């Protein structure tokens, strides 16, 4: 049982964020969805249960959180760890080991289980979660979805009573989400208590017992899944929530107004470490098109994105812009990659400097106008690191516009974004298309594809499976690409 006794919290040095008083009880075996906009307090809520507040994040804490007779604020982390398991959003940095078996064993090693039992538990975990084929692998060769499974397995091996999952689906493809759902169902059958903080709601609707909706640090309302499903699209979007049923999401069928540059790929093959990643790709796209690159994790979307930007070495075939063949170096002059983690591409000390960074004779007028246009001008003296995630993304886009790039590739631009921010990215991308840019978006996000893309490029099994414009005739195909039935 989890009991919140009039609990409130504010972070040290950031009083606005936190949680206003909450008083409630979560029964054993319940499955709770924590939803709301980014920064609404749902992550704070989970941190109050797994002890990261106050042990890792200091601040002002009032009231008591009690989990199975433990008062969290008075219990050392390692004792909480035995009963509360936490799985986090970024699978890359929650690994401690570099091989899968050791990673699964990490938690139970800390709990000092004897050698024989360690092996038994790891084996049992791999069996229960159907991940035997991931046994004895290096972490670095796993896909995002597989990493997430190992992170989960490591917590599962500790056999906690309570599971906390913080945006577990944000790096997963559609199939991996279905598997995640099955795992959650398994936990439910075992009578575990589950709390999931999540933006993507649709896959959880038939698992959860209650949904806690947070707004600006306040637990605003508790919904039953029926009540949540019954919200109209308008009500839901006003609350900043994503779709509860993907079948209801409709593509927007916007017209393509082709203009600007054309990009052609002729017989392009891509290898990685001498292994074939993608084979024989032929493609022709024009400015104004927004092409959603879809396919499973590990299908080659990243390799393809990098190749378009002239960053991938092992490549043969031809890439033409406006009919002329481009070298890799020339391709780099025309294209820009907006990475999933934008922090890697921000170098300078202020937004203003960033906008002209690396350009020999910068056009300061253009830079100013672009920052203005992307609503960044008022931050021009800020350090890029102090911007929010969405603002950083816009800054990267601003840079590409100032460098006169015609081809933009976005890698998972909406992973972990709430409805409002997803919509903002969709609008930004549409604006780029109207300016005549060729825009590629590697994504798993069906709702986002519906709002932003007008073409689909489906990669799988080392091939370009299909490419088609998003129009009424291709609706069935589109849904199939995203495993929506």
């Amino acid at each position, binding site marked *: 049982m989890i009991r919140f006794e009039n609990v409130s919290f504010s972070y040290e040095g950031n009083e606005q964020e936190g949680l206003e008083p909450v008083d409630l009880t979560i029964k054993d075996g319940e499955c709770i969805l924590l939803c709301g906009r980014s920064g609404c307090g749902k992550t704070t809520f989970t941190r109050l249960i*797994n002890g990261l507040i106050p042990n890792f994040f200091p601040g002002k804490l009032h009231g008591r959180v009690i989990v199975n007779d433990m008062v969290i604020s008075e219990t050392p982390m390692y004792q909480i760890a035995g009963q509360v398991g936490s799985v986090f959003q970024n699978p890359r940095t929650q690994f401690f080991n570099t091989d899968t078996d050791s990673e699964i064993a990490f938690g139970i090693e*800390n709990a000092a289980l004897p*050698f024989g039992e360690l*092996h038994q538990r790891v084996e049992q975990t791999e069996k229960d979660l159907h991940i035997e084929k991931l046994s004895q692998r290096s972490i670095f060769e796993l896909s995002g979805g597989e990493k997430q499974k190992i992170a989960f397995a490591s917590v599962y091996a500790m056999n906690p009573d309570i599971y906390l999952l913080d945006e577990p689906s944000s790096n997963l493809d559609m199939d991996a989400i279905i598997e995640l759902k099955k795992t959650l169902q398994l936990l439910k059958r075992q009578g575990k208590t589950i709390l999931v903080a999540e933006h993507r709601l649709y896959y959880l609707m038939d698992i959860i017992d209650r949904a806690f909706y947070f707004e600006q640090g306040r637990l605003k309302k508790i919904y039953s899944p029926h009540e949540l499903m019954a919200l109209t699209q308008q009500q839901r979007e006003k609350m900043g929530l994503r779709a509860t049923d993907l079948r209801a999401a409709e593509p927007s069928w916007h017209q393509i107004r082709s203009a600007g540059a054309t990009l052609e790929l002729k017989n392009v093959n891509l290898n990685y470490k001498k292994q074939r990643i993608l084979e024989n790709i032929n493609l022709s796209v024009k400015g104004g098109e927004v092409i959603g690159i879809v396919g499973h994790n590990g299908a080659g979307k990243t390799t393809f994105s*990098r190749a378009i930007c002239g960053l991938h070495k092992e490549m043969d075939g031809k890439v033409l812009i406006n009919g002329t063949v481009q070298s890799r170096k020339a391709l780099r002059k025309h294209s820009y990659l907006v990475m999933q983690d934008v922090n890697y591409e921000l*170098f300078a000390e202020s937004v203003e400097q960033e906008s002209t960074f690396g350009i020999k004779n910068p056009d300061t007028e253009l830079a100013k106008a672009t920052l203005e246009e992307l609503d960044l001008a008022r931050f021009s003296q800020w350090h890029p690191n102090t911007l929010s995630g969405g603002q950083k993304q816009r800054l990267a886009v601003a840079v590409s516009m100032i460098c006169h790039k015609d081809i933009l590739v976005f890698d998972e631009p909406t992973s972990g974004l709430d409805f409002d921010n997803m919509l903002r990215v969709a609008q930004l991308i549409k604006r780029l298309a109207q300016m005549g840019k060729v825009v590629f978006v590697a994504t798993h996000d069906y709702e986002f594809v519906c709002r932003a893309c007008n073409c689909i490029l489906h990669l799988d099994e080392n091939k370009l499976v299909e490419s088609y414009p998003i129009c009424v005739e291709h609706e069935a195909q589109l849904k199939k690409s995203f495993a929506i039935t």
Partner: protein
Amino acid sequence: MNRQASHKWLWIDPRTKILLLLICVIAAAMAPNLTYEMGLVLLIACFALASGKVRLAIGGAIGYAFFYAISMFVMVYASETLQASLLAFLGLVHKIYLCGFMGGIIISTTKISEFLSAMNKLHAPKSLTIPLAIMLRYIPTIQEDWHFIKDAMRLRDVSPSLEGILFRPAMTLECIYAPLLMAASKASDELSIASVTRGIENPLSRTCYVDIRFHFTDVLVVVCFLAYVVIGRFL
């Protein structure tokens, strides 16, 4: 189940590795001449080969050969004053190189969980081993970060190469450290969170999935190194 059987390559206890590193540090500090050091580097390269780190072994040996050649060149051709200042510096490089080479092999062949458990058996305090473990774990993430940063630099027309560092040093370095620092602070926070929520601070003596014990091979490797360190002086 015998997990040791699955080791294709030479596998020795992390504690033995620390002992080897100590031996190398002492040997390097007391090395009588360059030939002796070169022999030690070859021995370390053999150790790397046996541990399955072929590229590291070859790279390390070639790197040393490079410094060796420079030292020889200086000794033969440089003027006396230049020689005096350069040789002091190069002598230091030789010694540090040796230890760095050995350290690199140890880091790349030791799993974090092995390291933690071995430290535990040595009764090292957790306040020391946990930050060390997080640091060790952080090294491979730098490699991944570097790939992203390289891509980002190329798209901004900044060359992530030696040439870039030589001709536009300020800008190139800024490009590397700004995002790397950002990524590092985030990664270390997330790694720490992921470890404390799985009970790394548990005061109980930690167990290990890989069986950590001294084997005959441990003795053999130590004897090899000791033998060279002592006998090599008389060759």
